[in-house]
Every structure is written in structure tokens, then in C-alpha cells.
């Protein structure tokens, strides 16, 4: 059951309108992080991307500056419909959520810091944390065809995880230190049969 969505043939968005509505739909479900919903919707519901493709696009979106999920939307839109697709996907990701957040800002001049809001957000935060970790573990199945092999990918991932969690290195430092190493290793191992 785990593999079924991964091995199915690629599906592509039918129109710019569909691109917009799919990204709007997923953005509006993203409380405390859009990434877990984006993975669900793009890999499992619409099946526009395999898990490996999703991870690769996310990787590029992450090493570049800017909001990761907006970069991701832009790249997916660009891939299917060029510049118009890029802007349509990005607009889907931000237009309606922007209206929602500005209406809230106008209504809640003093912020959303009532005790019950804080309590609710704390509970949702615990869920978001779990969703992020669960999504990472799920996407790891897409690494099985990596030239790094499972063991190489696992070692690189462990080093990156510890660099952030134990050494508290900033993200750019982790990418600068481990990125070239991991990319070099991939290039080297890919040459071997």
C-alpha cells in the first residue's frame, strides 16, 4: 500500500486553473506548515510528482533563498506550463491565504494571544511537529534508487540531523558543509555500475 502511489504513472495538471485551485486547496489546509499537506496532495491525491521528484524539487527549493513552499510551487508550475504556470501555482499558494491573513489582521488588532488561542496553537504545534517528521520518513522511501544507496543516504541524513539538533548549526552551514560532500559522493558512486 505504501508503494502504490509511488509507482503509478505520472499525471500532469490539465490546466492553469487546475494548478491554481490545487495549490490554493493545499495552502488553505496548511496550519503550522504547508509541507506535509503539499506532499499528500501532490504525491498522493493529484499524483503530479513521485516521492523522489517531490524530494528533489524540495531540495532545490530549500537551498535557494526565499520561502521554500512558494519556491516549490513556482518550480512545479514552471515545469508544466512555463512562466504562466509558475505564476499561477505561486498565486494559488499565496492569494487566498493572503486575503485570509489580512482579514484576520484587520479584525484582531491586538493579535491572537488570548489564552485559548495560545492553548490551541500549542496543541496544533505538537501535531505539526509530528507531521513534519512523518512526512520526512515517508519521503525517505523515495531515496531507494539514489546512487548513494540506502546506507550512504542514511549516513548523510544522520550527519545533517545531528548537525542541526545536537550542534545547533544554522541551516546554511549544514548545507555548505554537507552539500558538496554528498553531491560529490553521489557523482562518484553514479559512475560505477
Amino acid at each position, binding site marked *: 500500500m505504501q508503494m502504490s502511489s509511488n509507482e503509478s504513472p505520472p499525471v500532469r495538471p490539465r490546466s492553469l486553473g487546475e494548478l491554481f485551485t490545487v495549490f490554493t486547496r493545499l495552502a488553505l489546509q496548511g496550519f503550522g506548515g504547508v509541507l506535509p499537506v503539499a506532499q499528500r496532495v501532490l504525491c498522493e491525491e493529484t499524483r503530479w510528482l513521485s516521492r523522489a521528484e517531490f524530494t528533489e524539487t524540495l531540495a532545490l527549493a530549500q537551498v*535557494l533563498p526565499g520561502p521554500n513552499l512558494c519556491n516549490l510551487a513556482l518550480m512545479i508550475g514552471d515545469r508544466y506550463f512555463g512562466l504562466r504556470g509558475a505564476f499561477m501555482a505561486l498565486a494559488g499558494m499565496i492569494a487566498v491565504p493572503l486575503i485570509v491573513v489580512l482579514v484576520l489582521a484587520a479584525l484582531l488588532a491586538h*493579535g491572537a494571544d488570548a489564552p485559548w*488561542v495560545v492553548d490551541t496553537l500549542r496543541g496544533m504545534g505538537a501535531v*505539526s511537529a509530528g507531521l513534519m517528521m512523518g512526512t520526512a520518513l515517508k519521503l525517505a522511501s523515495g531515496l531507494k534508487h539514489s546512487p548513494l544507496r540506502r546506507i550512504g543516504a542514511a549516513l*548523510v541524513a544522520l550527519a545533517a540531523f545531528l548537525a542541526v539538533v545536537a550542534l545547533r548549526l544554522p541551516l546554511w552551514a549544514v548545507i555548505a558543509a554537507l552539500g558538496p560532500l554528498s553531491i*560529490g559522493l553521489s557523482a562518484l558512486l553514479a559512475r560505477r555500475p
Partner: protein
Amino acid sequence: MNAVLELFFHGLVLSLLAVGGAVSTTPDWHRRLVEEGRWLSDAQFASAISISQVSPGPNLLFVPVLGYQVAGLAGAAATMLGTLIPSTSLALLANRWMLARADSPAVLAIKAGLAPITLALLLAAGWLLAAPAPHRASWLLTAACALLAWRTRVHILAMLGAGAVLGLLGWV
């Protein structure tokens, strides 16, 4: 007008510094708007962050709320466009470069090499988000949701709703 232009300019500058996502620029926005600009109080800044947290969508949306608090809708548009134009242009160029060489050994190595790092960073982000949780019940909820997201198709909104209710009841 002056404030709007200045907000746009702050956005442009911070856009390309936002490696690791929009949230990484929060301290810079605070410095420019609260400490140096004296446009917002600490309380207003905190309220912009809290409003963006209760709202769905990408976490970049705290940026237009800050702009809105300084200069209304024009301020929101200025910060949003300022932040998006540089990073979006760069992302498009990089994507085109990668797509044009999709099968080259270099691009394949870049993708394969970055993939495990990306997943580890996602795992670490979840870990750090859960770390300050006050009680064991929060950790249990986090672990349960990680397992459900990994292994099942339980709807994400159902899990978030359950978390909201448990938080409201004071259980987590």
C-alpha cells in the same frame, strides 16, 4: 509613501537572505521595523507573528501582516512584492537551468546529493518544534502524528483538529 517604499526596499534586501525559508528573516524584520525603524512596538510585532500562525498558508505570510501594520494594504503589498521578486526570479532561473540539464551527471548528482540532507532538515525541524513541549503528553501526540503521517492516510486536518482540541482542553 515613503514608508511604503522603505518597506519594499527592506523586502528586497531580506529576500535573498532568506535561506531556509521566510521564518529565518524574522530577526532581521524585527531589527528593521522595531529596533531601528521604530515603526512597530514589540507587542505589535509579536501580534503579527501570532496572527500568521493562526492563519493557514505558507509561513511567509507574517511578512505582509507586518507591512499591513506599518502602512495598511499598501504596506502589505510592498513587503510582499519586495520579498517575493528577488527570490522568485532566482528560483525560476535555477529551475530553468536544472530542467535544461535534467539528465546531465552533474544535475543528477546535485539532486541525489541534496535529497537526504533535505529530509534530515525536515526531520530536525519537526524535532526542534517538538522539543520545548511542556509535558510527556505533547511528545506522545507528536510521535503518534508522525507515525500516522508516515504509515497511514489519516487526514491531516483531522490530526490538526485533534491537536487543537487537546490543546484547548489543556491535555497537551
